[in-house]
């Protein structure tokens, strides 16, 4: 493994695919995903951990990819927005619910909203409206579409519990 002080070679699994890359040590994980792996679905808003747009799951836990160095993800499994849909290309129930509930306008915050909510739905299959609101409190939506997002998250939870069909 390349161990110079200003670049390092890392092996990281992103959306199930293993990548081996050499990255400058000061490169943020967000920039690594976007510029090195060309996974531009992860959006970069504020770059200091306030807006939540760049949220990805690192080993199943949500994290702001602008607050991690790429080299820190060595050996980790990362899920980005590109990895949420089903293998056959159909939408995940959460994405489907976002579409149905008009839970996005400009779409800039959407990748971070979805990754953040993926963690919630994995941890808590039956979240309350309050749980959803607290969960996305670290994600800014400047179209102020929060009401639709909350409804979509609750819908998706119901679908995933098998209580509701996606089309309903």
């Amino acid at each position, binding site marked *: 493994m390349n161990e110079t002080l*200003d670049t390092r070679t890392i092996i990281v699994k992103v959306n199930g695919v293993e990548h081996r890359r050499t990255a400058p040590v000061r490169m943020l994980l967000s920039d690594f995903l976007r510029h090195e792996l060309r996974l531009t679905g992860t959006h970069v808003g504020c770059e*200091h*951990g306030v807006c939540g747009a760049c949220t990805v799951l690192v080993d199943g836990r949500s*994290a702001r990819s602008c*607050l991690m160095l790429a080299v820190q993800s060595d050996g980790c499994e990362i899920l980005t927005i590109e990895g949420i849909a089903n293998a056959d290309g159909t939408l995940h129930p959460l994405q489907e619910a976002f579409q149905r509930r008009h839970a996005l306008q400009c779409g800039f915050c959407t990748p971070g909203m979805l990754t953040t909510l993926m963690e919630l739905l994995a941890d808590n299959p039956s979240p309350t409206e309050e749980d959803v609101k607290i969960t996305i409190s670290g994600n800014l939506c400047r179209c102020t579409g929060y009401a639709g997002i909350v409804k979509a998250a609750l819908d998706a939870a119901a679908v995933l519990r098998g209580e509701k069909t996606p089309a309903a």
Partner: protein
Amino acid sequence: MKPPPFSYYAPTSVQEAVALLGSLENARVLAGGQSLLPMLNMRFATPDHVIDINRIPALTGIAVRDGEVVIGAMTRQRDLEFSPVIREHLPIMHEALQFVGHRQTRNRGTIGGSLCHLDPAAELPCVAAAHDAVVDVVSENGAREIPFAEFPLGYLTPSLEPGEMVRAIRFPLWPTRTGAAFVEFARRHGDFAIVSVAALVAMDADGAVERASLTLGGVGSGPMRMHDVEDALIGKTLDAIAIKAAAESCGAIEVDDDPYTPVHYRKHLCRTLVVRALETAALRAQGSRS
């Protein structure tokens, strides 16, 4: 909005980390990165060397021994939040963690990082002050302990010597008949508090205050223990009169002015939140007494 250039080290043992810290000039320790990374991105921090301690397993863990909860410096805030040990033995920390940033930042942020960054309005330093925590620090030259009362030197400045890093934090347990409460007011959920209050009250069998701890956050350069107010509560029943007197004393302190929060408003919050914290702590102490 990108970090400046630096050299990066990822030691896998405390020994290795303190050796680096002792030999490198202008080095910063990278814990959870939820404060240091923003400071790097905004170039408020420009270290020549970054020592990442995320790959040192010995720095993580929660244990109860000899009447104390011992928490490794790199224990994540999320792991503290969901720990049954913390919920049982340090309920005030569990409550305070609900106010610490967001799930995304608690997943990475660590207790050692919060204490060393020492934001004046941060919740975990308040809890450490309230509980008379002891900070276990280590350098190439050995280990020493710093009582939390002596840990903050000033704004964002812990009393660590060059070459020292935090290894663990010890929280002495309170008696079983203790009620604890952490309350705060912030403009948005997850923001740093404008004012926060941590209260611990231990009652005797007759319901009189045997021991009290009252800490204000957000009002000065670090957490502020209100020792005079605590002393005045000893032996009293926590009725409305005693609580009001404590709140008035807390509202009389000198607080910092800032462009967003006028002094009178911050003082008002001190009084209001002290009442809420003491009322809640008293109720909880009574609950744990029966």
